[in-house]
């Protein structure tokens, strides 16, 4: 009898504690949201924590649980979370393809997008699910001025023939012309190089190539893509890309350029953050140019998107959207995105802070000039939404780059393979 009484008292006490907790929580009125982030050499935890705090200081009723993707493939991680019914409320720089079509994402309204320069970018079936927050030029070819001078290359190349000539001189001087990488980060470590070639060979001739591919009007096996694939293979065959570098990941690739292991580094403009940072800036001066076309006409591949997305099933959907917009439009967050991640915010009336580093400033000015000249095209392999490849094909594109560089497949084989994978994915 006594034992039963004790058990009953214990149960009553426990449920009273629960009631108190619930009452305490609802009394404070805080809205909890989860936020999936990712970390890179440029974006450490302190960058994210400070950015989140700037928003939660403005909206103290919002409590943010930060999640960190285990590696840079945050899209794959988000898919696993969706499959296990744990999609975070807010996500950053995750490709919306697939998520949007399945109804997992909340669409942004035209009013919510009024502050963005390109409010329709990355739309899926006409609706925008990812804030088109940042523009990235992919690639910019950063070069080591000291190594260029050492090899007798007096000026950055303006045509593709001049690029090959410069590469030959560098190789003759015992300098690796291009620093590239691979491993599991091949999309970011080698993808920009291929995007540069594809920009001049494919998108410069047909800016709607990907939309046409979706309508089956063009194929990877057509001459433009195949010629681009042949150029990448040719760079490797000539020894201008060291195929042994395919084993090094993104961080090691960046470090290889910053420590002078190669003369040129075709990378997204986010590299400017590392180039300007006092912790990582190299002991040589960095120059930059856009990937040159055959005839010297300027072609600048760029992608605008990369912003925050919100789950359609967020428990506190209004709070999630409020947080996402506030995070994206916060001036200090935008300034930090320039300095910490080299991004070009695509926000109306926004100009980068005056204290950005010289590499960033030069890249920003170059992009704006290209934009004014109408030279901007999509960045192949880095598009989003209806502008991008079908779900599952980008990973095949990634693997194909390695096949071209190692010579395992011919350009024609790669193009045929990508068409086959496209058919499987449709």
């Amino acid at each position, binding site marked *: 009898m006594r034992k039963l009484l004790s058990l009953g008292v214990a149960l009553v006490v426990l449920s009273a504690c629960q009631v108190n907790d619930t009452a305490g929580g609802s009394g404070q009125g805080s809205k909890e949201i989860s936020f999936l982030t990712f970390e890179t050499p440029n974006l450490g935890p302190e960058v994210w924590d400070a950015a989140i705090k700037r928003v939660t200081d403005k909206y103290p009723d919002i409590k943010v649980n930060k999640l960190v993707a285990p590696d840079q493939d945050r899209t*794959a991680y988000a*898919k*696993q979370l*969706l*499959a296990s019914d744990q999609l975070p409320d807010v996500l950053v720089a995750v490709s919306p393809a*697939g*998520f949007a*079509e*399945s109804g997992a994402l909340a669409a942004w309204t035209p009013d919510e997008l009024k502050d963005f320069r390109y409010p329709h970018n990355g739309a899926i079936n006409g609706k925008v699910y990812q804030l088109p927050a940042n523009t990235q030029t992919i690639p910019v070819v950063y070069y080591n001025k000291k190594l260029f001078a050492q090899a007798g290359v007096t000026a950055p190349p303006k045509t593709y023939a001049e690029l090959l000539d410069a590469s030959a001189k560098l190789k003759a001087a015992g300098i690796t012309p291009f620093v590239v990488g*691979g*491993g*599991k980060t*091949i999309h970011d470590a080698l993808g920009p190089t291929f995007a540069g070639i594809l920009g001049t060979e494919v998108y410069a001739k047909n800016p709607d190539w990907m939309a046409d591919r979706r309508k089956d009007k063009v194929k990877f096996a057509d001459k433009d893509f195949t010629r681009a694939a042949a150029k990448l293979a040719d760079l490797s065959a000539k020894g201008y890309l*060291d*195929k*042994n*570098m*395919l*084993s*090094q*990941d993104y961080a*090691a690739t960046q470090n*290889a350029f910053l420590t002078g*292991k190669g003369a040129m580094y075709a990378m997204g403009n986010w590299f400017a953050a590392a180039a300007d940072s006092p912790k990582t800036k190299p002991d040589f001066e960095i120059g930059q140019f856009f990937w040159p076309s055959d005839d010297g006409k300027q072609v600048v591949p760029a992608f605008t998107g990369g912003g925050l997305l919100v789950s359609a099933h967020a428990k506190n959907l209004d709070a999630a959207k409020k947080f996402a917009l506030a995070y994206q439009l916060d001036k200090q967050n935008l300034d930090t995105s320039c300095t910490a991640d080299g991004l070009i915010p695509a926000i109306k009336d926004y100009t980068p802070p005056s204290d950005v580093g010289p590499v960033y400033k030069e890249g920003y000015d170059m992009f704006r000039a290209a934009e004014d000249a109408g030279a901007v095209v999509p960045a192949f392999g880095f598009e989003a939404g209806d502008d991008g490849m079908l*779900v*599952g094909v980008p*990973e*095949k594109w*990634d*693997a*194909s780059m*390695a*096949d071209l560089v*190692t010579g*395992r*497949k011919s350009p024609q084989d790669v193009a045929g*393979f990508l068409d086959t994978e496209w058919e499987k*994915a449709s």
Partner: protein
Amino acid sequence: MWAFLIFGAPGLLVYVCFVLAPILVSVGYSLTNYNPFRPPTRFVGLRNYQLLFDDPEFWNALRVTTTLTLIVVIVPNVLGLLIALLLDRRGWFYNGLRSVFFVPVVLSSVVVSIIWTRMMADDGVINQVLRGLGVADPPGWLSDPDLAVYSIGVILSWQTLGFCVVVYLAGLQGVPRDLLEAAAIDGAGPVLRFRKVTWPLLAPALTINTVVQLISAFKVFDHVQVITNGGPGEGTTASIAFTVLRVGFTANRQGYASAMAIVMLLVIALASALVLKFLQRREVDL
């Protein structure tokens, strides 16, 4: 009956919830075109299995997995036995060496993968040593598509070697000394004693090592994911488990991936059963 229910039920419940139920759900998915991003889900019968047998990606994954399995079954078994024979002595030195060999077994596979990725990089310590020894163009251990799968096999063998050593050491402890002494008195040398006395009595250890290595190698995923992500190039190191996850979570074809997983389960079960049956015939009773 009541005793079974009270003591056996919790374990059975765990087994049903975490093993049997997921397998049955996977079988169910494998009979559909389930893609969470492209509803609706329809019953397609055995179509996924038919597609599987015509899919070069699946056969490539099977080839890669078979290569890795052969390496991981043979190399640690052979080296494990040799090392166990050398360490089958008393003393603090040999005790210490046993611990040293076992350390990789308890390390996280992700940690092991990251360490070896750095070591095997083009400018990693292995190639630096080779260049120091005069090798001008050392191999691309992880960047050469023809070599990468063997490099992963070496890494897996390194990590599991300690397990085989420990099992063989335990087996060696079970060989009666008087049998070995009797053989020695009869004039048998060390090799003959090993062949006729020790080796037959090590059959259980061989069975355990072979079956465990076979199952582990067939399921390999994390090393592939961390070290090469299935590359370099298309599928050069993509094991079946890696391909299942890629098809299921990157391409989102979860019905098809489930079919691949079920086939993988059947292959592992069949291979394990055959190996077990063959090896258990060798086991002798004293």
